[in-house]
């Protein structure tokens, strides 16, 4: 069981573009409720009724780093925010990855902005002595972020681009073909997760995204069906185990 969710006011220490339409925001304050890679925070934005759930990319003693892609009005508003202002944040949401489940050679398979939570996971695996290889898929070269960051802490980093402008031409599943692995973790758009589910040769964990109302299990807005019953992506997830998924053809 994770620590309880906390509502905290965090200060923006950094908010900078790191790739085409992708920003890194560092938030400082009491982040003690954020305990596990794969958890997310839920940000209140002025003038927007619903919060914005964003996964945690990294954590230090008193900061969380989030990466976000500008896709709508909320994220566009975030991109305009100056350092020094405070945000109302629900911290420590979701179950996060089970880091202890990794065994042997481990793949971290990320698609687009979905690669973000795999970074803190990679750091945690490294601390546990697990050998991890990052497989990161993007649409095109200008979308790539955190390649050197992953390279610094992973045994290897393989880039795939859909248009072939960098690395393997195609999807992460194309890049996975030649790799040997015993376990994997993945996060990305649902079509990618589905492709990884069918292409993967080992057990693994999947981190999902869904439109959420509350982010902490109250509204039933993000429920999905699994082998072990109905699950709320926000509270019982966002990480589900491969064996729980109902994508068998």
């Amino acid at each position, binding site marked *: 069981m994770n620590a*309880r*969710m906390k*509502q905290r006011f965090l200060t923006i220490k950094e908010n900078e573009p790191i790739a085409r339409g992708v920003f890194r925001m560092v938030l400082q304050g009491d982040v003690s409720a954020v305990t596990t890679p794969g958890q997310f925070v839920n940000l*209140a934005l002025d003038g*927007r*009724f*619903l*919060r914005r759930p964003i996964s945690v990319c990294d954590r230090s003693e008193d900061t969380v780093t989030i990466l976000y892609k500008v896709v709508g009005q909320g994220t566009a508003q975030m991109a305009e925010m100056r350092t020094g202002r405070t945000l109302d944040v*629900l911290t420590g949401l979701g179950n996060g990855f089970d880091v202890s489940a990794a065994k042997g050679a481990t793949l971290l398979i990320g698609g687009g902005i979905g690669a973000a939570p795999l970074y803190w996971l990679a750091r945690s695996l490294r601390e546990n002595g697990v050998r991890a290889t990052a497989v990161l898929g993007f649409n095109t070269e200008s979308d790539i972020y955190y390649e050197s960051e992953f390279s610094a802490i992973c045994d290897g980093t393989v880039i795939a681009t859909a248009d072939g402008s960098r690395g393997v031409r195609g999807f992460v599943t194309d890049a996975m073909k030649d790799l040997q692995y015993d376990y994997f973790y993945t996060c990305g758009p649902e079509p990618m997760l589905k492709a990884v589910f069918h292409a993967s040769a080992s057990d693994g964990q999947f981190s999902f995204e*869904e*439109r*959420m*109302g*509350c982010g*902490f*299990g*109250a*509204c*039933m*807005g*993000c*429920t*999905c*069906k699994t082998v072990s019953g*109905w699950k709320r992506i926000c*509270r019982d997830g966002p990480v589900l185990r491969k064996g729980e998924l109902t994508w068998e053809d």
Partner: protein
Amino acid sequence: MGRLSVDLCGIELDNPIIPASGTFGYGYEFAELYDINVLGTFSFKGTTLQPRYGNPTPRIAETPSGMLNAVGLQNPGVEKVIAEELPKLKRCFHKPVMANISGFSIEEYEAVSALLDKEEQVGWLEVNISCPNVHGGAMSFGTDPESAAAVTRAVKAVTRKPVIVKLTPNVTDICEIARACEAAGADGLSLINTLLCMRIDLKTKRPLLANGTGGLSGPALLPLAVRMVYQVARAVRIPVVGLGGVSRAEDVLELMLAGATAVQVGAANLVDPFACKKIIEALPEVMDRCGIDRLTDIIGQAAR
């Protein structure tokens, strides 16, 4: 009785604040965050006879000053609620709870009510005849006075607990429905449920919600709720529970001035899980500022 306390159908509430059904689960997610015994009571997740998964996702969309939901009455079914949820609730909530029920036939409303009538912790039955997100049930009972009365009569026949009928704003004349429920024996009314709405995704050019339509909640609803509570409170003699867009202590006072005996808080719980606690804590100071001694003094004052 304290400054904040009110009487709702013969049961005293320490304060009029009631988290609305569907925004508070069965209570224990919030009990992890604060002592939920500070609440007047709360209305638990709408419960049906059979388990219901609800609608496909996306079930949620944002709107200016609010949100749409099309959850579709996801719940584990009344038997599991009684066997699993209520025992868990009993450990963290020691007051009578409001049991929100829904159905697809009069017989279903009757069956669920009869089962929950036996539960000691249930103080009131709140009969939802107003959910806009399911087909062939719920709201279709709430848009026709005769059907609304038939559900009310059927539930009243199987319970001795106070019956509060939850009304939809998606009607031409809400007073007509309110009077029909009162005549059929309702002990109270709660209003308003969500307003039937739609949003369309500019990228896909399709409705944003998988269900197509959804119910609007959030601050956008407040003036509609105030108007309807004002009208209904003058049309019936039974107590009215006001809800719709409440997020501050000031909103509570506004609905009570319009005629509400108690006030439910819905969507606000989803964006601030501490919303109800903050409203309860803010009430005495806001009452002082407005020259209000006791809340019971202002119920319906705007119409007098």
